[in-house]
């Protein structure tokens, strides 16, 4: 019995000591993170590896090949998705991997070594090379759990310098390398537009051009974090990954900072923003136009009454003329205009551009959804002479005018179609009617009449446009 008690006391003593001495450790050292390359020998350059690809059918890399390249595009912004581009001094290649936010470990500027044995390589047909696993007849993504087996990270913080090229010379560059274009701008239709549709997460094409109007497609993902940003209106540089798609070059930026276009556009104009961000009169809009292509600040709105008539088709289908007080403007929609003569409207111009078309000031690419119908209005025409209109074009452009006591002449066989002449005591004015207008074949009256119409600025020459034969009385 005593034996047990001795055992107990021994145990108890040990226990007491251990109770107060044993500590359950849960403090941890930060591991040292050394910025070094792995001990791997590069066996092929990227160009040499690309030579293994025989075409668009994935080819298994069955030998122990190691390549290395610096990450030039990661997935931080979301414009690249499950795709990493690495580049060495010879070429670039796209790695397809099933990881989102791999940028946490493989950010831009980090050298990555790839143990290629067991992976497949293919040319996508446009000269873009991809590395991954086989997925039917194309390259699929490397399973997430295996990425670390094939991709070995190396040094980070390596600067990546894009090669400066011109749009015309892009096709000579190795595909998927990082390039830089200088002195380029978004084409005017694409300025002040979002890079992609963030709301619907649709990808969009925007076009970048040089001053010779040579254009290249800039393709951006609707999932990218810059999708909802507006493209700048000025001129400058862009850094991007150059790919070939459908036989044409295509650019993909890594993030919004890749675009630096704050200078003057080709042929002048700053491409700067205009608008107050609130409701403006059309007269004010005309006054703040800086020349070139300007982009409306978000929230900028105008109101006015439609003085053109889409039903008689004497105006381009996508256009309408809006007048507010004594000033008017051409509004161009991205789709055919659906608003009627005398509709009173409010238009949200956020992101739309303000520019001249054949010298007429025009708001570009308004969406019908940005228009609110306030009701119906009526514009009383300003009664003036032909001489007044000719010498005050900038004031009367896109407004409704009436000239009394005029005679009409010219045109096509006495019809409205084409260019006719309005004559009053002070001079003459062109009466232009589109051949597609519903009334273009109508014979105009030969006597003295009063005529009403809006003034169109055609390359500096005023023209009167009537909405129908009722405008001539």
């Amino acid at each position, binding site marked *: 019995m005593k034996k047990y008690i001795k055992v107990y006391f021994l145990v108890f003593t040990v226990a007491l000591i251990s109770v107060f001495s044993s500590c359950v*450790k849960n403090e941890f050292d930060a*591991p040292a993170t050394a910025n070094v390359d792995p001990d791997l020998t590069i066996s092929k350059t990227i160009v040499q590896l690309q030579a293994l690809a025989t075409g668009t059918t994935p080819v298994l890399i069955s030998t122990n090949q190691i390549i290395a390249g610096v990450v030039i595009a990661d997935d931080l912004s979301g414009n690249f998705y499950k795709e990493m581009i690495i580049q060495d001094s010879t070429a670039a290649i796209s790695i397809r991997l099933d990881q989102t936010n791999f940028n946490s470990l493989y950010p831009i500027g980090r050298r990555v070594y790839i143990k290629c044995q067991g992976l497949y390589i293919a040319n996508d047909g446009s000269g873009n090379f991809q590395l991954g696993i*086989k997925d039917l007849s194309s390259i699929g993504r490397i399973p997430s759990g295996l990425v670390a087996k094939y991709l070995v990270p190396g040094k980070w913080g390596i600067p990546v310098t894009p090669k400066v090229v011109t749009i015309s010379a892009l096709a000579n560059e190795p595909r998927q390398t990082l390039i830089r274009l200088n002195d380029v701008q978004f084409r005017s239709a694409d300025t002040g537009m979002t890079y992609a549709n963030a709301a619907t997460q649709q990808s969009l094409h925007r076009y970048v051009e040089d001053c010779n109007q040579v254009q290249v497609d800039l393709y951006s993902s609707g999932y990218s974090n810059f999708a909802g940003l507006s493209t700048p209106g000025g001129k400058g540089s862009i850094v991007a990954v150059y790919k070939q798609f459908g036989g044409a070059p295509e650019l993909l930026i890594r993030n919004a900072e890749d675009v630096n276009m704050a200078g003057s556009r080709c042929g002048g104009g700053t491409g700067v923003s205009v608008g107050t961000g609130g409701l403006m009169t059309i007269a004010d809009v005309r006054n703040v136009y800086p020349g070139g292509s300007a982009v409306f600040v978000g929230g900028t709105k105008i109101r006015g009454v439609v003085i053109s008539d889409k039903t008689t088709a004497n105006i381009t289908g996508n256009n309408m003329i809006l007048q507010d007080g004594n000033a008017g403007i051409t509004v161009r929609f991205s789709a055919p205009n659906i608003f009627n003569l005398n509709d009173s409207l409010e238009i949200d111009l956020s992101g739309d551009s303000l520019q001249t078309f054949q010298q007429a000031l025009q708001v570009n690419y308004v969406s019908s959804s940005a228009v609110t119908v306030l009701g119906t209005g009526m514009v009383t025409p300003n009664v003036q002479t032909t001489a007044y209109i000719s010498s005050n074009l900038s004031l009367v452009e896109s407004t409704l005018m009436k000239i009394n006591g005029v005679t009409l002449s010219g045109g096509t066989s006495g019809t409205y179609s084409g260019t006719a002449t309005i004559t009053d005591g002070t001079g003459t004015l062109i009466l232009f009617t589109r051949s597609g207008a519903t009334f273009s074949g109508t014979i105009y009256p030969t006597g003295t009449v009063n005529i009403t119409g809006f003034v169109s600025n055609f390359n500096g020459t005023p023209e009167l446009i009537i909405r129908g034969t009722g405008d001539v009385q």
Partner: protein
Amino acid sequence: MKLKLLTVYLILIIPFFSFGQQYIIKGTITDDKGVPVPNARVSAPGSDVSTTTNETGEFILKNLPSAVTNLEIQPEPKHEEKVPETATEIIVDTPKTEEIVNYRADTENIPTISSDDEGSEGHSSTSENVASVLSSSRDAFNNAAAYNFSIARFRVRGYDDENLVMLMNGVPMNDLTTGRGLYNLWSGLNDVVRSREITSGLAPAYYSFGDVGGTASIDSRASHQRKQLQTSFSFANRTYDNRFMITYGSGLSKSGWAYAISYSRRWAQEGYVKGTFYDGHSYFASVEKFIGSDHSLALTFMGAPTENGRGKSSYQEMYDLTGDHYYNPNWGYQNGKVRNSSVGKNHQPLLTFTYQWNINPKSSLHAAIGYSFGYYRVSSIDWFNALNPQPDYYRNLPSFDPNYGEDTEAFIPYAEELANLIRNNTDSRQLNWDGMYEANALHDTVYGNVQGKLAKYVLQEYVTKYNRYSFNAYYNTVLNDHTKLTFGYLYQKQESEYYKELTDLLGADFYVNLNQFVDVENPTENSLQQNDLNNPNRVLRVGDIYGYHYFANVSKYSLWGQALFNFDHFDYMLALNVSSTTMYRDGKTKNGIFPNDSYGKSGEYTFPDAGIKGGATYKLNGRNYFFANAAFETRAPYFDNLFLSPKSNNRVANADDEFITSLEGGYHLKTPKVKGRLVGFFTQYTDETETIHFYNESFHTFTNYTLTGLNKRHEGIEAALEVNVGHGFTASGVVSAGQYFYTSRPNARITQDSKDTLLAANEIIYLKNVRLSNGPQQAYSLGLNYRSPRFWFLYMNVNMFDGIYYDASFTRRQVQSLDLVETGSSKWNEILQQKKSFNGYSLDVSGGWSWKIDKQFSSLKRPAYFLINIGINNVTDNQDIVTRAAEPLRFSFADKNLDKFAPRVTYAYGRTYFINLSLRFN
């Protein structure tokens, strides 16, 4: 050596006192064979009275307070049967002293409440604590429920904690915001929480109206502690490996003072599950003063600061690959050392002040004030624009084909390669701490006016801080020979503060307080991304509060009364309860998505409730009892269910009180040789409100489902038979056969945290007849016990479990999930069929020995005992018992591929042991 140690004990043992005796009750204690039990300790709870039986089992209890309704009997320690991890006392629930002689002095198995958190994933996320035994009288059923069935996380009648009212020294111990029992507050204090009164089901208690699951009242006041010094040391291979406990009780001094103190430490460098450490201290002190013999004032303070590395349930695929049903994805190596990302820290000290006044021989008043405070913290990894670090993320597993299964042939070798990697390489299946540190070193970033390394990964803690106040008073009086009345008043108030704290930048310089789940349509307008518009674009450092921050405030008043009527052959019971619960949220951040609905106080929501219960017992004779009880009550929704998404806004469900009907009835047999019971129960919950939150792949955000009109039913039978077969052998059989299932199609209001867009206002969830997932619905046990007259015992039990259902996913049971699926097709069935786990079985063996060792300590002139208890659970090392499995809440609506998101499964521990050595001086 021995002498020196003895001296240590002498110093510790000095403060013993004796005390005087005045009034007398006599009795005899026999065992169930009618053999007198000598040297058993008999005491009256709540008084200073205790004594020991003589050689013929007789006792004289003196100086007894008049309103004593219970006697506590402890057998002589020599005969003590101590099943490891259980308590050792019986409280005999009887009002008449002469009946005591018929009760066997024996032990009761009350499980220690463990605080391990394995597998706390999933929407039910009920507390992992095993509820206490729900009856006071020793009974084979309760033993099995509390001890043998606990391995499978059996719940008596399938009830959640909120159905059991729990009191500590008269202070209510259920969390007001969730209803959960606060067992963690006294974990490790096994020595001092042994005095318990428990009523099961709808049986009446004199201290609480109770609830459908019954009541449990623990009395840890100093006068309820044995007059003794006890130390014990335990070895185990469970949540912890070592436990040390020391407890001293002074007994009551002549001047009316009593005090008791206890300390314990439990620890493990690594528990049963890899990567789980455990480090818990527990402390306890109680002092009590009797003023005269009628008034007692007791002040008790206790706490259990505990830290532990947590386990996490994973997918069957990972268990198969690792060949380990206890695979734990929470840990990984950092500098070669195991580090667990999910560490729980819990410390909620409890202070109770209890007053007892024995007004006259027929009446008594109890009043208690309670205050508890402290925190519960759980860490995890948070990440922003970074690769998901979870090693068992479904996209990291071999079963996931990243190329949509278009080229299965080509994928097979890669899947096999990945499987081999996971099988053979620990790093590929555990957290990569070094990788996270490396990622954090890579991203030099300018953010506002701060430049530095922006963290991709951080360690965060989900913090809850508590302040709980309560006042409880009840008055008992004997009106006449047939009637006893009880009245009670209870007030509870709780403030819970919730926030996230950044606790480790993992080598980076700062982190940002942005909501990563928000889809930013307009990057120049980033207010939506702000977790707190009052402090936009805040740069975070270690110790900063971020994410969400709010208070949940709940208060409740209850008033209740109870009448008990006793006649020769019938007992009747009638009780009424009215209460009012008020709750509101108080937001401390202005959420970018809910700017008008998140900062400041929400509305106050008040729910008046009422309950009534009644019952009758027919006492055919002293051996045969028939009883029937019924209860009807309403219950206010819990805060966490009423609020749609308290982490982000003040919005609430259109919720009403739930209505509960509970019926029970049965038969008890009590003969010297055979004891048994057969009880049927039926409980219907109607109009319950339940809210769950989970990350929804389809929306890339946290989604909240608030279900209203949720009905559940718990019905079944409980049966137990225990036969004394002689020669020291007792055989027992226990059956708990229930069905717990949903009985309605609730409506779900589906909201998301990343957008102020309602996903569905009234989505029907097709849950009718789907089973609940709350442990085995059927459990069986066969036991054989042997007790030797030579002071040792051996117990053996074989247990079987059935009806362990996968927790039903709500997302899978919407119309949308079955869109374009042909009714009755195999796909249809596959989607709707609820999986059931395999039946489980286990074998438990335990034994104990005790020695009286007075001679070795003769100088003390005190009885001294040395005890060894050994328990082995699951002797056959059955590692296939599922304790919990949950259908995934993510559902792939597009392709209806059920394999895309697999269920998470948790297995019961295999063979575990517990060895306890203790030394006791009375």
